[in-house]
């Protein structure tokens, strides 16, 4: 009975499924072709995996050394690690302080002047395009070896990230309260402070914590170009092939980064 009913039910008019198979295959073929061309010795990078086979024993001893950290090296790592954290804190504070007004100037609801906004955004795109290691290398040449060029490099790097993310969150906010401020006769600067800041605050704090995490990680490598912190020590032990000591430093960085992740996650959860 029920089968008969199902059979007698009117057939659904399902539209024909659009065919896009060909496009997908073409895309896959293009990616594969580019990959193969890149590996060709004549025009590409000349990828050759033979050294991995020839030198595997060499690599194996390094891995064994990395797996046996030199714990006695710990006391010498404490001061550089603290310097790394200090650089991260100072870089974050300076970067965040400069980022706050820039974030308002880069967002549409808080800066209606198109040309001004465009100039701020262009400047920030330029800042973001340069990696922090390059800033550090140039700043070491400008202000000398030490923590200072590292802190300045981190601050510049942070401005690029914070302003980008906070201004996007301001752009996405409901503009109603800002319209109310305009209707009440406030200047844009007053409206930004009295209204927009309250709504942007969680995004700002959250992104500041995020760049602090990035800074701890980034400041470990800034030392490689002479910009202070534990990176200087990494460079030294690497030069002497002390992979057991390098291993200890990597472990310490890992512990510090995990602890900071946990703490900032806990803080972020309380931001509602």
């Amino acid at each position, binding site marked *: 009975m029920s089968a008969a009913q199902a059979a007698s039910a009117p057939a659904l008019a399902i539209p024909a499924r659009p065919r896009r198979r060909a496009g997908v295959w073409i895309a896959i073929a293009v990616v594969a072709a580019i990959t193969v061309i890149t590996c060709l010795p004549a025009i590409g990078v000349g990828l050759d995996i033979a050294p991995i086979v020839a030198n595997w024993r060499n690599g194996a001893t390094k891995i064994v050394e990395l797996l046996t950290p030199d714990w006695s090296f710990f006391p010498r790592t404490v001061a550089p690690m603290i310097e790394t954290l200090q650089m991260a804190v100072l870089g974050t504070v300076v970067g965040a302080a400069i980022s706050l007004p820039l974030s308002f100037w880069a967002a549409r609801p808080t800066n209606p002047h198109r040309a001004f906004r465009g100039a701020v955004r262009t400047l920030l795109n330029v800042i973001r395009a340069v990696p922090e290691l390059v800033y550090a290398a140039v700043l070491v040449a400008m202000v000398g070896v030490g923590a200072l060029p590292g802190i300045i490099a981190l601050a510049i790097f942070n401005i690029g990230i914070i302003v980008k993310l906070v201004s996007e969150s301001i752009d996405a906010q409901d503009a109603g309260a800002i319209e109310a401020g305009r*209707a009440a006769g*406030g*200047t844009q600067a007053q*409206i930004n*402070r*009295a*209204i927009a800041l309250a709504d942007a605050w969680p995004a700002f704090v959250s992104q500041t914590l995020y760049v602090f995490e990035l800074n701890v990680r980034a400041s470990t490598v800034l030392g490689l170009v002479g910009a202070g912190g534990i990176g200087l020590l990494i460079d030294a032990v690497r030069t002497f092939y002390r992979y057991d000591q390098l291993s200890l430093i990597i472990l310490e960085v890992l512990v510090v980064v995990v602890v900071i992740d946990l703490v900032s996650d806990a803080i972020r959860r309380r931001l509602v």
Partner: protein
Amino acid sequence: MTDPIIAQGTGAAAPVPWGIRLDGVTVRYPNGTVGLRDVDLDIAAGEMVCIVGLSGSGKSTLIRTINGLVPVTAGTVSVGGQRVDAARGARLRQLRGQIGMVFQSFNLAGRTTVLNNVLVGRLTHTPYWRTLVGAYRHADRQIAFEALDRVGILSKVWDRASALSGGQQQRVAIARALAQQPRIVLADEPVASLDPPTAHGVMGDLRRINADLGITVLVNIHLLDLARQYGARIIGMRAGEVVFDGPAAGATDADFEHIYGRSLTGDDRLDR
């Protein structure tokens, strides 16, 4: 109708209400939509006017030309004898400071306190440095407290605005408008997001502002029973033109059918 000498006077405690005059006002939006079509309107100081019409009829545009949130394409708008359409910058902000506005979606900064939201109404009387550091004058805070008391919500002064119910939020928004010590209050669909009992409460507040303080009040509303009950004068809008203008007492169902351009349904009334 408006006596310019009285209108220019700067009353101390209770500001003298302003009249509103539109002459041949046309608003064409950048996308080509015509919001208003050659509108002439004269509203006397101290009137309580309900503007009715379907959504898209131009009532929202009309109310926004009065405080310059929407620029006019042609014609002149003046409040208290002073041109709004020709005013720019500080002059326009000064005029807006005299005109309170209430919105359909309340337009509060949800993440900050009720008091901070009401203090937005004091922005034109506050120098930027005071806004920046949040140091509002004692007198301005007092005005904010009194405005909250007038709408019966002073007990919520330290609450976060987003923690309040819709009706409470709209009362905060009315208090923000009152804190401006305005000569005109504009309300754009103030009860469209509220349930019926709350809607009557908010409309009652607006009527009291008109009756007790003598402030000119314009309310956009699409519910004809509320318009009849709370307005002294009704202006009907259709397709950007004024199609009805007369005392609320004399507005018949036939008049509303003419405004809406169709027969009335249950949705046109709040209380069925």
